[in-house]
């Protein structure tokens, strides 16, 4: 009986380590572009559009634009997909992804919904 418990504990420990590893690798902290270059995992960066030089190629589905973060550093964003709702009216945006070379490859774009800012004021 004792042996069974030891096996059980080992299984639970392995699973706990696995869950911990999975949690760490799935974590996407809010950082700046400078920090994002240091990190290898997925991150979220909030930034403002620099100019209106946003190009979008619908047939191949690539969207590229320049974004400036709150510390003032700038990066080129490449996103494989269609622009999210309210994209064309947003002033700032959150990009989720990581740097590949000099370009930031985004896997998701989050447009901050204006209504959420309203909530904070109350």
């Amino acid at each position: 009986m004792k042996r069974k418990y030891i096996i059980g504990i080992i299984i639970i420990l392995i699973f706990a380590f696995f869950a911990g590893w999975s949690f760490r690798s799935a974590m996407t902290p809010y950082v700046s572009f400078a920090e994002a270059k240091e990190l290898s995992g997925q991150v979220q960066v909030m930034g403002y559009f620099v100019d209106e030089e946003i190009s979008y190629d619908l047939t191949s589905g690539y969207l590229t634009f320049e974004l400036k973060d709150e510390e003032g550093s700038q990066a080129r964003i490449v996103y494989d997909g269609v622009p999210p709702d309210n994209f064309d009216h947003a002033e700032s945006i959150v990009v989720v992804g990581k740097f590949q070379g000099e370009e930031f490859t985004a896997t998701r774009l989050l447009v901050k919904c204006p209504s959420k800012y309203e909530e904070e004021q109350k």
Partner: protein
Amino acid sequence: MLGNFAIYTALITIFLALWSYLFKSFGKDYLLKFGRKMFFLHTIALSVSTAYLFYSLIAQKFEYAYVYQFTDKTLEFRYVISAFWAGQEGTYLLWAILGAAIGLLLIKREGADWEGPLLVFVSAVQLVLVLFLVIQSPFREVIPNPTDGLGLNPLLKNPWMVIHPPLVFIGYALLLVPMAYALGAMWKKQYGNWVNRALPWTLLGWTFLGAGIIVGGYWAYRVLGWGGYWSWDPVENASLVPWLFGAALVHGMLVQKYRSGFKKTNIGLAITTYVFVIYATFLTRSGVLADFSVHAFSRTPVYLYLGIFLFLLTAGGAGFFFFRMKNIGSSSRGISEEEGFLSKTGFLALSVAGFSISGILIILGTSAPIFTGWFGPPSSVEESFYVQTNLPIALFLCLLLAGSVYLPWKKNNETGGFLKKLLTPLILSMAGGLVAIFLGVYSPLHLLIIVISLLAFWANVFPIVRIWRAKGFLYTGGYFSHLGVAIMLIGFLTSTALTQGETIFLTRGESQESLGYTLNFEGKEIIDEREYYRVLIDDGKKEHEVEPQVYYAGREPRRMREPAVLRYWWGDLYVSPLETQTDERERTLTLRRGETTRIGDLAVTFTSFQAPEHSEQGAMRVGANLVLSFEDQEIEATATMARLSWGWDREPVLAPGGGHLYLEGLTLTMVLQLFILSRLSERERENPWWWK
């Protein structure tokens, strides 16, 4: 008046009911009759306020804040029901009336010796819910009385949204019963038979909550247009976690019912399940996760009281449990030597562990932004965490539910034969795996999932037939639910692993091939401010006409995409509109008052200024009244803009023939600029500004 009067009556009566049941439980038996009367009156008062809120919604009494916020004159009668639970006040009222009905049932069915403690806890929760209604009454008056309402969010104008909230709230309300029993059991120091009494209530509540979650997922699939039914969003997780603990509780209760073990575990689980019901409500209504969820949260003054209630419930429940732990411990036991883990008892115990671990992992992931914020930048976790950790647990649970069918309650000479009995289901599942390889599934992980879920399926099919014949249909419930779980797992897998998607660009009049279908964009229609894209789809056998839609909803209009779904028995074709593009670039025009300007076939006349309005947060909203004519249609509309804290809020005008006109600015020389974002018409195609 009547509404608020009924709510205050409900508050006073439930307070008196709680008071009399409390003293009754301490031996003052003469208070029982009075308590019952008060609870009965409480139910009547809540029924009156429910009926009155329905009446106000139907009669369009816009002077009430709730009616003003969630309906307007154009609302169809059938969605008045959705409007009832479109806001927080309505859902608290729904929750309270369901709780009252359950309280009455408990009085009627559960016998005098349990009535006291049960009704103390039920009344306490009712008191909290009615307090919320007093703090934020749906019958608050809007002064001056408006003549029309703001209207129901179009996302909620859907038949599934009529039934989704009540299913979830019936579940939430019923899951109070096991906790009330568990607390009552600790109070009375009778840890034995409460489980037999609470089990049917738990099963019912757990089933309703499960059904509510599934209906919610189906609604998301049909209405939200992103192609899925589950996105591990905080709001979704918040309802899944109590369901998982409910599952652990149901299985733990079976151990206690048949083998009288797990007394401590069950009391702990019953409390935990309800704590997570309240935690879920708190997460979704407090706005703490607003930055991390795609759902719209709104914070109301009630959230603070909800937080206090959550704290009291958790601290009180845990405190009482630890205080009584030793006392329960003397009569409780875990898995005995003679049962062993290779038995029904052992498998049930493992399933309790599996469900609980899954629940804990999901709540950790969902709450990640809160606790990572204490150590550094707040981080959310990606979907991969939930999938990676829950998949092994789900497969483990599947193996348990396949094996448990053939195991005896305790280890005996039948135990060895259990693998032999599993042989037929195992062969059938392997055969299914081979079919999957033949159909083109090569990933070892996918094949493993297919075989294990098929094993769970076949292992439960045979007992259903056998037990239905031997004992009758009513004894097959457990097996049927396990069969359902197996089918659901197969569905999850096939829909995630085998989905193919493609983004295509359709030009009007040109047909295009995609994924074996021929699609033809036939044109666009605008009905009730919704853009319907008519697409003809040829699947090789038949032509289908579908109409995916795009529309703007919400107070700061957001684009919504409603998909069209073509159903086949082997899968769905899901057509969701993403973007529309037009030939010409957007243009900024300067209009003078009284002048008519042509933009293609659209004629725009700037007639007058709209008087500035001071509305949201002291911001001034300015506007231009326009007359738009396109072919033989002519409409009058107002484009407005306001400077809000987050930037400019522009309310566009939808032009006849398609396209939106945004007010870009008003200058001192009374010049109006119009900004056309993406004007879509059948004849001309325009590019938005980011298309170069």
